[in-house]
Every structure is written in C-alpha cells, then in structure tokens.
C-alpha cells in the first residue's frame, strides 16, 4: 500500500476517535466546561497533563535538540520535568483546595483585587497566545509533511478538529481526547526508539541502551559517539562547551522549571481531579507519563546521530565516506522534503560530512572543499527514525498521527486557558457579573471559537518572532504567575499591593531584558545591546532571565508589603483554609 494512503488511514482514524470523544463528552455546565466537573481520575489526568504539556516541539524536535548539542542541552530535560516537583509540592494541591476555575481567578480572589486579576489575565493571554501559535504552525507542518496537503489546508483541518471537541466538550472533551492523544503519541515515539536501540546496542529499552555497549564497535555507545564526533571536528557529546557555561545552565534550567510550574494551561489540569490528595498524586503520574518520552528522547537523539555518522562513514571516520549513489533510501526520501541536503563541493561523488569550522587533520591533508551534508535538520532524527530502522510503513503512519496528536493536545489546553480567562475572569468576574451560568457557558464557547480562529490566523501568518516565543512564554510564566501564586499560599499576610507590584516588576523586568537583547517585539535591529555573552548583565542570558524575574517579583512584593498594611483578617483565614485538604468538596460553583 502507498505510504500516503497508510498515513491517511492512521491520521483519519485518530481524528475520528477524537471527534467520537467530543460527541460523547459534551459539556452541560460551566463546571463541565472549565474543570470537567472535577471528576477526572488522577491517573487519567496525569496522562492528559502529559499530552497537554508535550507539544509538537517535544515530539518532533526534542531528540534533535539534545543530539546536536549533547550534554549542554540536558537543561531542557531537567527544566521541563523538574517543574512538576514545584507544581506538586508548592501549587497544585492548594489551588485544587481553593476550588476555582482559572489561574487569574485564584489571584483575583486571594489578593481581593480586580487589578491583580486583570494583570494575571494579561500575562496569561500573552503567554498562552504566543505559545499556541507554535502549536498551530506545528500542526500545519505535520499535515503538509505527511499528507501532502498545503500548510494552510492542513492548518484549517487541524483547527476544525480542535473546534469540534474543545467548543463542544470544553475541559471534559479536551481531557479525554488528550488521554487518547497521549496513547497515540507515546506509542508512535516508543516503537521506532525500541528498534533503533535494539539495532545499535541489542538492548530493547532505549533508556538502558544509551548507557550500554555499541554492538558494532564494542565500545560504550556514548564513548563511541564522542570519538566519531571529535574525529570529524565536532566537539564531544558528553562535555560542556562554549557558549554554554555552568552558570547559565543552572539559571536556564531553573527558569524552565519555574516557568513550567507557572504555565496556566498546565495548572488548570489539576482543577479537574476530585480531591486535594489526587492533585498531588496526579502530578506524580503526569511526570511518569512525561518521563516515558523525556528519557527516550536523549537516547533516540544520541543513537540516531551516531547511526547517521556510521552510515556515512561505514569504515570508520578515518576512512572514506560512502558515495552519494550508495546512500540509503531514507536519505533519498528525506532529501525531497529539504530537511536533508547534500552538495558535492569536491566533485568526487563522496559525502564528506565534518565540521568545516574546525576541520580535522584528514580534511586539511585531503584538501576537502567543505562540509557536503549542507542541511541536516534536527527534526530528521525523529521523523526518519522508522525508515532508518527499516520499520514497516504503518510505523510512519503512526508517527504522523503522533506528531499531530502532540500538536493538537497542547493547542487545546492552551485554547481552554485563553477562553476561560476571557469568559470567566474578564466577563463573569469583572465586567459582566450579572450573567447567568447558561450565558457564561455560551460566552465560554464563543471565546473558545474566537481563540481558535485567532490561533489559526496567527499559525498561518506567524509573526517573525514565533521562534523566540517559547523563551518569552517561560520567562513570563516564571516571573509573573508563579511567584504570585506561591506567595498567595505560603504568605498569609501578602496583600494586593505587594502582589500587583511584584507581578508588574517581574513581568516588566523580564520583557525589558529580553527585548533589550533580542529586539523590541523581537524585530531584528531594534535590540539596544548585542546579544553576546560579554554584553549580558552579569553574564545572564536573556533566555535564562525568568528565574531572575521571579526573584525580583518576590523581592518587590515583600518590600511593598513592608510599606503597606498586611492582608485583611478574612483573607488570612482563607489562606489557612486552603492549606488543609479537609472540606475541598466536589464541584464548587460561585
């Protein structure tokens, strides 16, 4: 059967499943729509959180992100998982006990202030909208790659599917589709990984394969990888290299951790479980499900990179590479997508792949004309994996469905965070408190539809800064929402003024620092300082600034608190009540 037909069947079947769930899980009340009636099993919520969290980028690009840098990019692995410890210990159980529907809802009520609520809504909207652009773009790319439709058509199909289950089912529909999407994406990721691990190390578990012996050379896999990379003039895989420093690795990891814990679309998933104890347990399960992918990704990355090098240099990196005509079929296939490109600079038919910025001795002696594998896109390590491992066509179909599942599940979570902030926080709780529950549900659906249209438009016409927005989203989450929520729980006396000043200082300093080096709204040429290590204040990379912004937020809030009156008595009692699980109850409506 033609690969296109197989892909179509897999993607079509997974979409039919999502729509089926949408019809089954229609939302009848605002509690259904915002929090799935708080009736979600904690393990199911864990899987849904994992799908919500792992984006198209995690699925397609993560392995390559690690593989092309090696040790230095372990920051992503630790940062994107360590945040769940913060969530489980510092935020999730208390927010569940508080029993509201959105993150600004907690901030507005705890700090008894409309201003605080609106600042929280603004930072939520900025981070979620920037984040959702990447997801929609990712869905469009996945469609065009696997189903040979153009980007815009793919994007519109994806939007229509999300529309069906998110507008109809709200959080209830999203939760159960995310569960299904998790199953699709993890199966799709794991199968080729098991086979490549078996091929290279004889060990079926990629997590163990990464640290075992490379069958062909008899050396430990990572040692072999270090060796071939150094022989080709690249830096070794397991070491720390410029421009990364110990200091920025620590700061970047910390920013990703705090940012992860402060992302509203992740936090609201913990509002859906029945009990406080379930919120703690659910965070643990979420991390188990995430770790299933995040411990496989570095193995896939290292193995695929080694595999590609040994394919090009079958007799070892000190000997001649293969000729262009001898290249395996999968390279041929992926050249057509432009993710892989050769250029025979030396005109001898051989594929000379090496680091031309630091040419090895043999390249100098041999008078090589430059690196001839001119495009080597990092996504190829995951996308081409089934073909590299010579797996049947249905595995490729599964990868197509998995990539789309990862993009759609994250997009849906973000869209819910956006629409609930509009219908609940801006309308019901601020500007139109008189609306009935039925009206609020209608507005929630309308804002969801509006958010999908906006996200689709931005996905089709991504602003120039789309690639940078992840740093912005994490920076904002780390510097604005996380400290505010944490102080709301761990300080009884923290008052409205402190929280508002803190959020504005955290948010403002982070935005200014990022714009200072990356340009105002990321417009090239508008940066006031060059984005180099020497120009960074105290050597802090703008991408790592979130943690510093968080510290500034805490500091500003406490200084303001010292100069103003502590929170009123009834608020302090409220904080005491959210600190104990007793009396959380089921669905709490206002």
């Amino acid at each position, binding site marked *: 059967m033609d690969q296109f037909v197989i892909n179509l069947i897999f993607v079509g079947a997974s979409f039919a499943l999502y729509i089926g769930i949408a019809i089954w899980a229609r939302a009848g009340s605002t509690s259904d729509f915002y929090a799935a009636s708080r009736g979600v099993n904690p393990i199911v919520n864990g899987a849904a959180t994992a799908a919500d969290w792992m984006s198209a980028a995690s699925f397609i690009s993560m392995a390559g992100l690690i593989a092309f840098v090696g040790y230095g990019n372990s920051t992503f*692995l630790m940062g994107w998982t360590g945040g769940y410890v913060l969530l489980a210990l510092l935020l999730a159980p208390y927010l569940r006990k508080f029993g509201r529907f959105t993150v600004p809802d907690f901030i507005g009520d705890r700090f008894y202030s409309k201003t605080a609520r609106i600042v929280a809504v603004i930072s939520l909207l900025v981070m979620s909208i920037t984040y959702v652009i990447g997801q929609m773009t990712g869905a469009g790319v996945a469609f065009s790659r696997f189903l040979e439709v153009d980007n815009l058509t793919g994007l519109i199909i994806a939007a229509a599917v999300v529309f069906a289950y998110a507008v109809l089912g709200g959080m209830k529909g999203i939760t159960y589709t995310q569960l299904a999407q998790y199953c699709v994406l993890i199966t799709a990721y794991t199968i080729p990984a098991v086979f490549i691990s078996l091929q290279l190390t004889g060990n079926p578990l990629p997590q163990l394969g*990464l640290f075992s012996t490379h069958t062909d050379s008899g050396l430990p896999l990572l*040692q072999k990888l270090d060796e071939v990379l150094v022989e080709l003039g690249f830096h070794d895989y397991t070491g720390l290299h410029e421009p990364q420093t110990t200091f920025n690795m620590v700061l970047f990891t910390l920013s990703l951790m705090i940012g992860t814990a402060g992302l509203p679309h992740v936090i609201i998933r913990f509002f859906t479980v029945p009990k406080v104890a379930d919120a703690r347990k659910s965070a643990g399960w979420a991390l188990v499900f995430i770790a299933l992918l995040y411990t496989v990704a570095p193995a896939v990355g290292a193995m695929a990179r080694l595999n590609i090098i040994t394919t090009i240099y079958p007799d070892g990196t000190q000997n001649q590479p293969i000729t262009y005509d001898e290249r395996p079929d999968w390279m041929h296939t992926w050249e057509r997508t432009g993710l892989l490109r050769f250029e025979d600079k030396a005109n001898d038919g051989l594929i000379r792949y090496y680091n031309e910025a630091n040419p090895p001795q043999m390249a100098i002696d041999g008078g090589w004309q430059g690196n001839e594998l001119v495009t080597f896109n990092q996504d190829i390590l995951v996308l081409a994996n089934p073909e590299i491992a010579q797996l049947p066509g249905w595995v490729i179909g599964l990868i197509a469905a998995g990539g789309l599942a990862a993009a759609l599940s994250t997009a849906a979570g973000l869209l819910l965070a956006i629409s609930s902030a509009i219908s609940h926080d801006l309308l019901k709780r601020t500007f139109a408190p008189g609306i009935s529950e039925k009206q609020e549900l209608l507005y929630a659906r309308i804002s969801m539809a509006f958010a999908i249209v906006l996200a689709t438009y931005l996905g089709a016409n991504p602003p120039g800064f789309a690639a940078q927005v992840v740093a912005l989203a994490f920076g904002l989450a780390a510097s604005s929402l996380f400290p505010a929520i944490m102080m709301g729980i761990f300080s009884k006396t923290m008052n409205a003024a402190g929280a508002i000043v803190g959020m504005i200082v955290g948010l403002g300093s982070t935005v200014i620092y990022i714009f200072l080096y990356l340009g105002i709204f990321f417009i090239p040429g508008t940066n006031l300082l060059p984005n180099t290590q020497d120009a960074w204040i105290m050597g802090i990379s703008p991408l790592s600034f979130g943690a510093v912004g968080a510290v500034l937020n805490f500091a500003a809030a406490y200084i303001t608190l010292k100069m103003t009156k502590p929170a009123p008595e009834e608020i302090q009692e409220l904080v005491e009540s959210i600190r104990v699980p007793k009396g959380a109850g089921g669905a709490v409506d206002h």
Partner: protein
Amino acid sequence: MSEKKSTDDYWKANIRIITICMVIWALVSFGFAIILRPLLAGIPVGGTDLGFWFAQQGSILTFIVLIFYYTWYMNRLDREFGVEEE
C-alpha cells in the same frame, strides 16, 4: 485553641518535608548534574560519568520518586492531624 495549634503544627510539618524534598530536587539537578559534575567525574556510567547520567536520566527519575514520596507522606500526615478529605 487546640485545633488551631494542630493546624499550625500540620503546616510546620508540611514546610519541613517540602524543604527536605526541595533540597534533594536541587542537589540532583543543579548539584550532581551541573555544578558538582566535575567531582563525580571519577564515577563511570556507561561510557561517561555519573553527572551526565543525572543530567539526562537520573534527575528525572529522582523527581518522580520525590513527588510520590511527598504524596505518600502527606496522605499520612493528613490522617494524623485529621485534616484529610472525607
């Protein structure tokens, strides 16, 4: 009055266990995987050293254990202080 005191003790016990967990959280990630990696360079793990293992696998596994340990500990603490949910 006694209930009030009990709630304070519950919160203190909670803060203590959170602090312990956070110290371990920081030690395995910022410590073993990054800052203290040179000190662990002598301990080989599959072609590299222990610090690399913590950076790409060990810290994630520790995080999972930490959350489940905290969950178990808090469920016990909730019952001990009679503040668990019905």
